[in-house]
């Protein structure tokens, strides 16, 4: 074409196609609409709209009620535990051994608090590195099929009844030996592992592809890329995942009844020698006692556990929000 700008040649001698259309008969535009509503009427609901709006409002009320009920359950539980447990709470309750006779007043739950702390620390020390490495395998190294299989297995593990985990560890570590805090930690680690792995995996997937590519393009080996760029970027999220898993594991009772329930009520921090006192089992046994004083100590212990778990969850969520914001 001779036109240097590549424009199509102009066709001024032909009639404009738009003009042609306008001059044709109106039938060509389709049949005329017959029952159009009166567009000039007032803008109030008409026809079925009234009924549909009523249904819509009913549905809204139902949904709001359900949501409020769900929240109310938490409120009622927290309130009733606080009402009965807070009155028991004192510095002595947190620092003293329980009285020798379950029926007598006074005393505290110090052995259970220390025991739970030791068991949870050990469980986290086992579950966190394995969970993070599992998540790294899933996001960085696994192929499509192995990744899918591992995710499925982790989800199955997550759904495993905790009493079954407890039984398994009972057969593995307690039968032929004796109960121990370590056995409890081991079971709790199995319960926490899929939580940490899956939550960490979600966080690792949020690390921008561009960052990985940038690191890869610098001729640095993949593991160093993971260690130097991927993990630091996801640090906040991984911490959140761990804290939430700890909050979940701290309240687990079933495995501990099997694995760490026959204990002397004195403070001990050795998880290998004997069963460690711990809060969930203490609540379980004390609430079974027929004595009013033991009963109120159970409420007090429940309150301590609840406060710890709520605080851990709130801290975890705050951390996760902050780490999302920083990205």
């Amino acid at each position: 074409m001779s036109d240097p700008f590549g424009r199509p040649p102009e066709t001024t001698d032909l009639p404009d196609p738009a003009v042609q259309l306008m001059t044709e008969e109106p039938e060509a535009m389709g049949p005329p609409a017959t029952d159009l509503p009166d567009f000039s009427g007032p803008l109030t609901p008409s026809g079925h709209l009234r009924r549909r709006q009523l249904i819509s409002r009913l549905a809204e009320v139902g949904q709001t009620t359900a949501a409020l009920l769900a929240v109310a359950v938490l409120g009622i539980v927290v309130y009733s535990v606080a009402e009965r447990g807070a009155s028991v709470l004192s510095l002595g309750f947190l620092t003293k051994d329980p009285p020798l006779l379950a029926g007598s007043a006074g005393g505290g739950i110090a052995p259970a608090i220390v025991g739970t702390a030791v068991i949870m620390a050990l469980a986290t020390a086992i579950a966190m590195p394995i969970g993070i490495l599992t998540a790294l395998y899933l996001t960085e190294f696994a192929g499509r099929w192995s990744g899918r299989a591992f995710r499925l297995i982790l989800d199955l593990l997550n759904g495993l009844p905790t009493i079954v985990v407890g039984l398994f560890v009972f057969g593995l570590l307690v039968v032929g030996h004796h109960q121990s805090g370590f056995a409890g930690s081991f079971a709790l680690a199995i319960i926490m592992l899929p939580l940490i792995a899956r939550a960490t995996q979600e966080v690792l997937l949020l690390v921008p592809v561009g960052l990985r590519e940038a690191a890869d393009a610098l001729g640095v080996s993949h593991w160093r890329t993971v260690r130097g760029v991927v993990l630091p970027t996801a640090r906040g999220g991984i911490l959140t995942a761990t804290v939430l898993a700890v909050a979940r594991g701290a309240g687990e009772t079933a495995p501990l009844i099997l694995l760490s329930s026959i204990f002397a009520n004195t403070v001990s921090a050795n998880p290998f020698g004997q069963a460690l006192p711990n809060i969930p089992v203490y609540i379980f046994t004390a609430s079974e006692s027929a004595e009013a004083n033991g009963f109120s100590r159970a409420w007090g212990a429940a309150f301590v556990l609840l406060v710890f778990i709520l605080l851990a969850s709130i801290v975890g969520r705050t951390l996760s929000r902050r780490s999302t914001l920083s990205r």
Partner: protein
Amino acid sequence: MRPPDPSDTADPGAPNVRPRVRINTAPQPAEASRLAPNGSPAETASRGIATRAQQRSARTVGREAIFDVQDLAVSYGGAQAIAGVTLQIHRNLITAIIGPSGCGKSTFLRSLNRMNDSVPGFRLAGKILYHGHDLYDGAVDRVEVRRRIGMVFQKPNPFPKSIYDNIAWAPRNLKMKDGLDERVERALRAAALWDEVKDRLNQSALGLSGGQQQRLCIARAIAIEPDVLLLDEPASALDPIATTLIEELMQTLKNRYTIVIVTHNMQQAARVAERTAFFSLDVSAGRRTGVLVEYDDTEVMFTQPTDRRTSDYVTGRFG
């Protein structure tokens, strides 16, 4: 349609080919050395490996071909992205890859340092020789490939670390710890960023502007002193002033590095590149495959392209 073989279309004896200035001035290989800035015996020797079309360019005479791409074809999970790409990329020149969206420019570029390896379903046929070594040979380690062939991406992607650590991270990991401070300064100076950041090296790189971030990424890439820099639309997310800075930067960097740049922006290719390759989509047989249409000196590509598709594209008629 297949991409025209440069040696066919550029043959002065072939009919139906629009004559080009370069053909008239240098029709015979023996005369090519006269066009070179200084005709040395080394240049004459290097002609043996160059194709005839490339010999005619004064730019490439006597320059070592860093990349020798032979009949490259790339597919992702069965979908052919590019096919039949044959070209050479020469030392210390800026080579631009232009073409419409989806024609495989980035695929081609990412094949040059094996960044596509991690894309699921990636398959490659043909050969890419880098200094004579087959890049996709089984014994080749892609980490070593990327150590020598750096890359800067379309979107600035600094690490969420300090400015200093962004530059120093790779040298630290590559055991180049001696004189790290000097290395960081050198890289930042080479990327024309030093004066802007020298007082806040310990602040987060995420606080820099987009243009500064992209220059930081260039500094990061050259801190490990690679052989080649691949730039994948490095200025497409930047404003005109930042773009100008990056383009000026490329002119100084080419003395030290071989640069391949993918760009959407034809004016940018015309401004910065000595050599330009035009990729386009071949839509015959119901498939859309990226092909190399034409590859020549930039002025030739923009003023006297051989292929109709090139002239359509550079005059803005399509794409």
